[in-house]
């Protein structure tokens, strides 16, 4: 069992960032290395850039706590739990925490290591005001999202 945590501060309100994070079907629009993903009920299937499909079970999608949790359901994992928290810092910025717990432990790094790039991409889209994930949820430059640290 191993645990891995990555976090990033984004200059955008938590409520806006949650609009993206809380939409499981658009993960591929901000998580580099995913070709696409589909959601059917609480089952999400992501297609990796290497061409490998990865089925997941959505555990939590809590818009009050702004917490999203899922687990990968392939046999190589004895256990997997990913948690994405969007935490309001009450200054029109937020902290996004992406945690990965996995057994075998190496898989935490194989899968969780990629979350660094995902968080960077999320910040890039919000702080530039443009990006496919923002387009998908109807956020753009003209919205109230902070851009480059300013409102």
């Amino acid at each position, binding site marked *: 069992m*191993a*645990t*891995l945590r*990555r976090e990033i501060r984004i200059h955008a309100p938590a409520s806006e960032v949650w609009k993206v994070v809380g939409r499981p079907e658009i993960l591929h629009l901000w998580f*580099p*290395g*995913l070709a696409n993903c589909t959601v059917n009920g609480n089952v999400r299937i992501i297609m*990796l*850039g*290497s*061409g*490998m499909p*990865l089925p997941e079970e959505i555990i939590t999608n809590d818009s009050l706590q702004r917490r999203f949790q899922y687990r990968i359901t392939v046999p*190589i994992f004895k256990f997997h739990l990913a948690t994405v928290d969007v935490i309001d810092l009450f200054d029109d910025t937020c902290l996004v925490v992406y945690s990965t717990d996995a057994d*075998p*432990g*190496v*898989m*935490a*790094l*194989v*899968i969780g*290591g*990629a979350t*660094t*790039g995902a968080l960077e991409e999320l910040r890039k889209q919000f702080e530039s005001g443009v990006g496919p994930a923002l387009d998908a949820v109807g956020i753009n430059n003209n919205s109230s999202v902070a851009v480059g640290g300013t409102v």
Partner: protein
Amino acid sequence: MGRKILFVTTDQQRYDTLGCNGGNIARTPVVDALAASGVRYERAVPQSVVCMPSRSTMLTGQYPTTHGVWMNGVPLPVDAPSVAALLYRAGYRTALVGKPHFEPFLDPFGKFTENVLAVQGRETAENQPWFDGSTGPHRGFEHLEFSTHGGAGNLHYARWLSENHPEAVGMFYQVLDATLEVNAAGGGENGAPQVHVNEMPKEWYHTDWVAERTISWLDSLQADDDWFCWMSFPDPHHPWDPPKDEVGRINWRDIDLPAGYPTTAAERERILDAKPRHWRKWYDGELVSNYEAPKHWVPATLTPDQLREVTALNAVECELIDEALGRVMAAIAARGWGDDVDVIFTTDHAELGGDFGLMFKGPYHVDGLMRLPLIWRPAPSAGLDPAVVSRPVGLVDLAPTFCTIAGLSPADWMQGKPLPVHDADADARGIDKALTEWDSELFGVAVYLRTITRDGWVCTAYKPGFVHDGTEGELYNLANDPLQQVNLWEDPAYSSTRSDLVADLWDSQPEPHSPRMPLIAPV
């Protein structure tokens, strides 16, 4: 027309595996001949003892602290400085054939350029989506063909094997186990970890493939092209699974145990107990601080016969490399380039090889991992005399050496110096020390070492980490204690030597990369 450069690297090869360095198991006549007519370095030191940081140092001419690849699993940015790019811009044709490992291999997301390139079966990166032109073709190499330690995966060698000899893909040892840990499963006659009987004929093995693809690329060049070719053999890195028909070259029963292997458990434990705690903890199987050794293998279980068999198989792999290099040298001669080619032969780091009862690698800065084979056979047309250099040099010195060979000034981002051609040259240019570093942070276990090799001493200072409080260290006299079995760090008689070396060590630390790059894969 200038001097051409054949840069030959192996992976995890010990200094004492070459005949010219005193080795008496593997027969290495090709490298020995290069040494006899060139410069043989007796104290070549890596700046990191694992692959990705060390290979990044070779390419960038920078210390790991500076290029930022601080441990395996941290990818070198695609726009990092590259001596290959410098040479390409100067008109050199450039190729990298064999093991790259500037980026992680474990890549289910298909994020890393070199993996994507290989998946697409492409041999050049030009006109690819990630090609930004900043360093010419990918990292300065216009031609790329990759392989690693087996037949699985999507690198060019694996694809070639799969397409041409699909029955052979599964003949290699499975480097990782079902949980993606480095495999501890034993094989061969004695059950040693990472030993395996490989039914594959020699002609399909990656050593021969690397040589043949190198020759193929050289054959594609014009006679008057200047070229830089990095020929990067994956062996003799574990697994030790050379082609079965070649294993009979060396009978493991005839092998003497390595000098660095204390033959009794009591002696091994006494020596290890005088070193910082992580040494003994690893030996006993209580702490595996890094990914590069099998997590589920306990070094204390290593038997003398297992070590003999591993040593023999390792030597077989070294012989195959030597013979493959001989074929490339013959091809070069056949092109009429013999007088104009510089050959540099080295490895990225070495292998513990039974020293102290240990194998593989980790945060252990001793000769087993840090004394490297390094041979520079200057182009005969350069008229340099053969020499043996005893002063410490580093892999960080390779990039500026390539520049000098090509008639270029080393770039200002390079941190090494062109290799000395004899000791007097080293003394005149103030080349007197080499630095090595280790940083690792894996699931809460952090280890940080900084080492200086100077004046016949190797001195390692520890920073606070998982099992270290920052007061630990190692100090060895390389002349009196060539096997580094007597740690003088706490010996009052050597306190001034220790103080002097430690002060120089910290004064000499290179500029850190900022921001620190994240660890995003195991290896």
